[in-house]
């Protein structure tokens, strides 16, 4: 096991900067997930850590070694690829044992390691099959097995679940989490799926346009998003945003609704007077209490019953809001309702910088 440090890490293709000076320290044994939309530089960063992509500037340290110029084989890492990258002409056993064979590990020792990993992943009965004879989920496990037998200092996962169907993705996700709990090795995991990031990570690194937008635990990025981007990216359905202005200690919406700033912010309310803001409210933070502390007026547009709960889409002075309501709630389309809010869950962002206020 080892820590991983990225120091002002850059990647450019000509004038195009893909990764723009990332600084990050990943602790020994930590499970860190890079998440962000397509093109944000998360896979490129992972590939630079693996040594599959050259570094334009900066440093990568694995443990206390600078590995910038080391080949992938010298970095003591193992990687699980998006398309699994299993050798199609080799059996599962040969796939898992290839790195051990290349490194000259004794046959008996290699066999023990392969069997242990296969047992751990429940693929012992598949060892003599070829990848073409396996299902997607089984291939994914073999790819993980191939990484495990190496006993590397760091595991790298590049969107390993993106080729699986939703049900299988959930299962394998749980297995990856259990695997980390069992072996405790440092893991860097790349995904564009915020649910994967939230469920797996000790810490989430949210990337945007080659820069780190926010680093934090799943609770931190969910409860204290530092920008509109993070607020909108983390959580499903996405956070609602509505434009407003702060006037006389109140957040004033276009439809005339006013929220007392004192209920949302503490301390610096008056400092924001006259400022344009973006109010962020998560769909699950609308409340149906009989006497909510604060309310918004909105017109019901669409009702989506999901069984476990009901999603209701509202129009509030031209802004569309989504609220997660109890399953038995079926408001009439066109009806105007007073939506209750938990003030402690309301987020304020500066309209110009889109960064969190307070």
């Amino acid at each position, binding site marked *: 096991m080892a820590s991983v440090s990225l120091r002002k890490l850059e990647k450019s293709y000509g004038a195009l900067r893909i990764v723009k000076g990332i600084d990050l320290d990943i602790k020994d044994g930590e499970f860190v997930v890079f998440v962000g939309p397509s093109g944000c530089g998360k896979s490129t960063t992972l590939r630079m850590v693996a040594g599959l992509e050259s570094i334009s500037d900066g440093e990568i340290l694995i443990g206390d070694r600078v590995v910038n110029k080391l080949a992938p084989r010298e970095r003591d*890492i193992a990687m699980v690829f998006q398309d699994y*990258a299993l*050798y199609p002409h080799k059996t599962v056993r040969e796939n898992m044992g*290839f790195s051990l064979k*290349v490194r000259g590990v004794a046959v008996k020792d290699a066999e023990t390691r392969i069997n242990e990993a296969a047992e751990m992943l429940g693929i012992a009965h598949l060892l003599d099959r070829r990848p073409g004879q396996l299902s997607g989920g089984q291939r994914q496990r073999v790819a993980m097995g*191939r990484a495990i037998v190496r006993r590397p200092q760091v595991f790298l996962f590049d969107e390993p679940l993106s080729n699986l169907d939703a049900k299988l993705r959930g299962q394998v996700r749980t297995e990856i989490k259990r695997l980390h709990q069992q072996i405790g090795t440092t893991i860097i995991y790349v995904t564009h799926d915020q649910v994967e990031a939230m469920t797996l990570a000790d810490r989430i690194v949210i990337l945007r346009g080659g820069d780190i937008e926010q680093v934090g635990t799943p609770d931190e990025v969910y409860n204290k998003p530092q920008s509109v981007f993070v607020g909108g990216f983390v959580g499903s359905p996405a956070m609602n945003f509505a434009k407003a202005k702060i006037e006389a200690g109140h957040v004033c919406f276009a439809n005339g609704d006013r929220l007392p700033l004192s209920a949302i912010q503490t301390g610096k309310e008056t400092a924001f007077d006259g400022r344009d803001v973006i109010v962020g409210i998560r769909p699950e933070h609308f409340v149906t209490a009989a006497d909510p502390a604060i309310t918004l007026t909105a017109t019901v547009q669409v009702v989506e019953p999901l069984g476990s709960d009901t999603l209701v889409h509202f129009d509030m002075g031209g802004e569309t809001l989504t609220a997660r309501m109890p399953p038995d709630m079926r408001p009439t389309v066109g009806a105007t309702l007073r939506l209750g809010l938990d003030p402690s869950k309301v987020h304020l962002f500066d309209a110009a910088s889109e960064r969190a206020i307070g």
Partner: protein
Amino acid sequence: MTTSTLTKTDRTDRQPPAWTKMLDLSDRALAVLLLAPAAILLSLIIVYPVMRLIYTSFFSLSLTSGLPAEFVGIENYQLMIEDPVFWETTWNTVLITLITVPGALFVGLGLALLANIPFRRQWPVRLSLLIPWALPLSFAGLIFAWFFHSEYGVVNDVLSRFGIEGVIWFNSPNLAFAAICLTIVWKTSSFMALIILAGLQTIPRSLYEAADVDGAGRIRQFFEITLPLLKPAIVVALIFRTITALQTFDIPYMMTGGGPGTSTATLAMYIHQNTVSFLDLGYGSALAVVMFALSMCVTAVYLRIIRTKE
């Protein structure tokens, strides 16, 4: 004026026109119908000529004699066994196959690996791969006949610049044979390279990246990943190349005309000589049947190899 409404009974009782029943074929009949055009075409252009060839090989049919065709059974085949030129040309054909097929494979593999290296402008390399393949065989034969010409050939010129005395390539059976083999390898390796290049491009890059992470160097990657995954493409290329090698005609015909003597003549050239020059269709057909059988045997062996791999 009466009005009619469409009742449920009307709808269910209405029968489709009788002629549509003719189109209501069983799966088997439909399969036969769909395959029939291809089967008829193949019969006309392959099965019939082959059958006719085998049939003619049992006749004495020489257009120069003016005599009618006479059934002679296996006499043409007996003549063949006693014919030293048949054995010499067959041996030359087999030798050309044994030398030029692996030769073209190795050169083609090398060229394909070079053409597969990622660099900015790949098209000039790929175009240069295509040129030898696109040249007509007889044209290639003519070019190399000039290359190896004893007086004004570029090969002797290059040799003389290194202080080596030029040789009369086409006077010596061995040198003439070597020149022909070199020409065939040059001409056919581009075909091998194209097929292998297509195979190389189907190997996902991530396999090499996984091997990099696993610790395998370039040479190990070639033997552990590239070569095993190229096997299907190589086998296909070998089948085509071997069959065309067994039919070698144009290049030796243009370069040496089979000489000196018959030392560089191939079986295809001997068939041509008997049927076109001597108009001995019976004996020529028997020779052609042997060449056909040889090609079929090689194809069968390769197909068996593929099936075993599967």
